[in-house]
């Protein structure tokens, strides 16, 4: 119990330290915009992956990622330390995605891009082959979830936001977000089991 408390305390301190680091970086970038590049380096992959999951097409993901960072840099003076920087940044990202879907041609299915230029992952090509089938199924099943459920999972797992940050982005309570994530994970698990057992669950 003591260990757990200590661990939790450590995690909280780490989270707090990361938030402090973001706040310091943001404050420095507010004074001097060239320092925004440090925040860009830190958040690029998370923003890109969140958007890529939401819009599904590489070109759109790149366009929207550009828009998010340009807007974030230009409107950095609007960021206040009240909330986390990540929450603020992903609010912009979410709005860009929403705007994207408002366009007539916004609905395009998710697809994996060519892996030749992969910038992330330490997986070996061999393990890629093993994992891809399951990941593809997961990606497909993710698409079958209700949009708000997809959104909350995208923010949690693709954007890497904490529950509190998701709550601030979506304007809900942290408890409600936790519950929603748990329930959606359960639902997704059920659908994955259905795939593994070779039976179809009615969508």
């Amino acid at each position, binding site marked *: 119990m003591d260990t757990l408390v200590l661990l939790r305390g450590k995690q909280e301190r780490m989270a707090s330290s990361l938030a402090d680091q973001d706040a310091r970086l943001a404050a420095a970038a507010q004074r001097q*915009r*060239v320092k925004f*590049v440090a925040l860009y380096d830190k958040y690029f992959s998370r923003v890109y992956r969140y958007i890529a999951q939401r819009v599904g097409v590489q070109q759109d993901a790149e366009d929207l990622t*550009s828009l998010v960072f340009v807007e974030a840099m*230009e409107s950095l003076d609007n960021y206040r330390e009240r909330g986390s920087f990540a929450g603020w940044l992903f609010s912009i990202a979410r709005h860009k995605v929403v705007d994207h879907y408002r366009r007539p041609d916004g609905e395009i299915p998710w697809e994996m891009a060519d892996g030749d230029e992969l910038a992330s992952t330490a997986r070996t090509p061999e393990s890629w082959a093993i994992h891809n089938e399951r990941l593809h199924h997961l990606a497909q099943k*993710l698409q079958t979830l209700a949009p708000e459920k997809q959104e909350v999972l995208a923010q949690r797992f*693709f954007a890497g936001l904490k529950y509190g940050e998701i709550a601030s982005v979506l304007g809900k309570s942290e408890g409600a977000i936790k519950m929603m994530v748990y329930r959606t*994970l359960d639902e997704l*698990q059920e659908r*994955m089991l259905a795939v593994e057992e070779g039976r179809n669950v009615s969508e």
Partner: protein
Amino acid sequence: MCQNDEMLDIERQSVGKDLWALADAIPYRKTFRTELRRRLMAQAWALDAEKEVRTLGITSQDKGEARSPSWFQRLASGVGRIRQIFQVRGGLTMKKGFALAAIAVLIIAVSTVAFVPSVRAQVAAWLGFGFEQQETLPPLLVKVLARAPWDTPEGTSFEMFTIEIIQDRWVFVKGAEMNGFSIPDPGTQIHCPNGNILPVPAYLPEGYRWQGVALQSQRIKLVFLPLGSQSGAGGGSPLPPYDSDIVNYLIGGNRANQLLLLAQFKGDLDSGLLFQAYHVVSPAKQSPTSVEDATSNSPPEIVPTPTPGTSFYAAKTQVGLVIQPAEEQEGLVFLVGPGELHETTVGETSAWWYQGTWNAVGEWVGDGTISLIWEQGGLTYQLTGQELTLGELVCVAESLR
């Protein structure tokens, strides 16, 4: 019930783990990431320049008088235990009105467009043409020259160390590769033979590659030249002891021979030492035809030296440090020329930066060289880049651990 909850948690963890893996599996193009970064840097630079105009305009209006040249005095208050005092030579007067500031910003903007490769590339992209970029860069070969003459007042002791960069260094690349040089992991540290610890940058600007390649050769030496170990008295009274306390490394460079130098200073000095960093860039590499053309009109300042195995002539780039006793100040004293000294931060640490450098005959050259000075872990660092933006330098500095 408890067992059911546990099972649910495990299942959730399993799906969650797969979702993390899926997120990791989403690829992005490296070139996109780099291009967007560049674009943001250019835009950030413009925003900062615009902000500077506004600030200077307000300052000028409010005070109704020119600011005194207090920028170097601010530094005298120092950071930590090492005093960094900047001196100005050349009778600096800094009356800045709004108009002057606007002109300065215009000059900066034009210089940025003209000289900063990333901005140039951006402008080129807008105009509909582009540049070819190389992905790999051979190790940079340098040659240690003998101590060069320096025009110092009689009786003044000094040290001067020069590294000559062989611009047309492709001839030596294969030989260096055959020696099996290794590249350290970004963000690590290197323990140097003289006891210094050199932090390896986790970040290098686009197009720059790590240059800290050790290669043993009598004729050619690569980087990792500890200047302190080369010390010897020059001129009058001996210099205060500083052997192995001051090191200047070439930590990066690009294909165009633009260099990234990191000087590391330990502050345990009995008395003041004056540092005057300099570099000399000879005219860009020219083809024989263009050299002949130039010769027909006016003789070139530097006689080109033929380089074996190529039809081009090699131009020379020299970088170095002149070290002299500081007569009135204690600790480290960085000697810079006329111009603005700006305050910034590296991480959470106060830092200063200035633009320009000394040339080999002691003249201040207001070129694209930017030097950033800050204190970290009890050491003072000076990071100097040619044709790099301040943001890029700060990123390099912040990546040193």
